[in-house]
């Protein structure tokens, strides 16, 4: 995008969005689960044209010394180069790391997964829950798409059976669902001039300087927040974003089963 186009968009966008959405309007959301049979749980989310695939894998590992009776959760994100000509292959960069950590905090701080139920042998063996985020197409607002796909994949996940030697037996019928008790939903707004735009597209993100992600729970509480990008926000921006997140979170939660 040239500097001129950016400037034009900056003055334009707070009046009229490129796709004619209202400022507080989300793009259509589609959630598909269970499409990766190899994974213990999986979900593909389409948020507008943004597409994210999340696979949940379970493994047996050692707990952290300071929480010997709790399972371990690991969130990892790959910005596959197929998703965006700007993405490069190689070790995860800044943006991939921030993305994974924002999603991770939503899951972790909401106590979404009952980690106490993932203990196999105190201090020795616990379940490790790997959530791998694969971005397939980046048309903006990856955080929300990835956060929704992650919780959808967790809800879809089954706990594999352990055989008598304590090894995973993936051929046996699973041992039931993963204990997921909260559905944290991240909702992001972008700020341009002093207007807040819900669910920004990739084009909007090019001229937006700041985004604010607010992750809320069913009870209306917030469990994680992240201001991202080099601009600033005010206390009233935060109020607006919080309200929008609660409202939108409720809508999105209905699409999760």
């Amino acid at each position, binding site marked *: 995008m040239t500097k001129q186009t950016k400037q034009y968009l900056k003055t334009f966008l707070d009046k009229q969005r490129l796709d004619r959405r209202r400022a507080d309007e989300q793009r259509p959301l589609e959630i598909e689960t269970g499409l*990766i049979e190899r994974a213990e749980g999986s979900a593909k989310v389409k948020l507008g044209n943004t597409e994210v695939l999340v*696979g949940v894998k379970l493994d047996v590992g050692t707990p952290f010394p300071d929480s010997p009776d709790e399972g371990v959760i690991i969130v990892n994100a790959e910005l596959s180069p*197929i998703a965006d000509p700007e993405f490069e292959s190689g070790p995860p960069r800044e943006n991939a790391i921030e993305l994974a950590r924002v999603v991770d905090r939503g899951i972790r701080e909401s106590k979404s997964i009952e980690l106490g139920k993932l203990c196999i042998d105190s201090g020795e063996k616990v379940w490790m829950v*790997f959530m*791998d985020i694969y971005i397939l197409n980046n048309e903006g607002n990856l955080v929300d798409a990835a956060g929704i796909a992650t919780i959808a994949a967790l809800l879809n996940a089954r706990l594999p059976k352990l055989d008598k030697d304590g090894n995973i037996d993936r051929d046996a019928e699973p041992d039931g669902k993963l204990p997921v008790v909260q559905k944290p939903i991240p909702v992001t707004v972008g700020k341009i001039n002093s207007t807040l735009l819900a669910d920004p597209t990739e084009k909007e993100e090019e001229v937006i300087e700041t985004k604010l992600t607010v992750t809320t729970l069913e009870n209306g509480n917030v469990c994680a927040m992240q201001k991202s990008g080099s601009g600033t926000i005010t206390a009233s921006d935060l109020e607006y974003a919080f309200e929008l997140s609660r409202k939108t979170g409720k809508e999105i939660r209905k699409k999760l089963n």
Partner: protein
Amino acid sequence: MKKPDDMKLIVKGKRLDGRKLDEIRPVKIEAGVLGRAIGSAYVEVGGTKVIAGVHGPRGVYPKYLEKQGRAILRVKYSMAPFSVNDRKRPGPDRRSVELSKMIKHALEPVIFFDEFPQLSIDLFVEVIQADAGTRAASIVAASVALADAGIPMRALVSSCAAGKIEGKIVLDLDGPEDNYGQADLPVAVIDGTEEISLLQLDGELNEKELKEAVQLAVSGCRVIHDKQKEALRRRYQ
């Protein structure tokens, strides 16, 4: 991996998933599945699922890779961490480095590189589920993605593997057959020719078996080729 003693991969002339010896798994090909890539394709062969995307032709960075008077093809094959039973650590390993090279060499013979001097065609293949035959599926997807991107090529490249299980030459091994089988022979063929652009073999074969396996794999490529053309036709009608 050692086959459990009581395991039979072929029962009454049929394989465990009900296929005949010379039958390919269900194949699904879709072209143009990604918004930001200039060309893309999704391919399923049985439980194997891959997505290929193409960026470019575009400038080459770092510059010293640039070629005078012609384009270059760069290929990156990766497997999603959740694509296999035991989670794969993200990032390239030795296998994926070799496979990237094999896929690249399988495709290069059909591309008209002279059309884009100094530029790079960047091809990425993501395996989102692996159930044997990922390199063949990758070539199939990559070939369709390149066509979808409008990269000038003299033909499509099709790919399929033959193998040996319990003493029989069969087409298109699936996961258990690959694990407990005796040989795997992936082949890629330039459509409309007798030219083989991928050929590898893992496992012992005698002269007769080798000939039979190559022929069977080539015949599998023909089947795949029709599906590729069909996918491209669907995309552009």
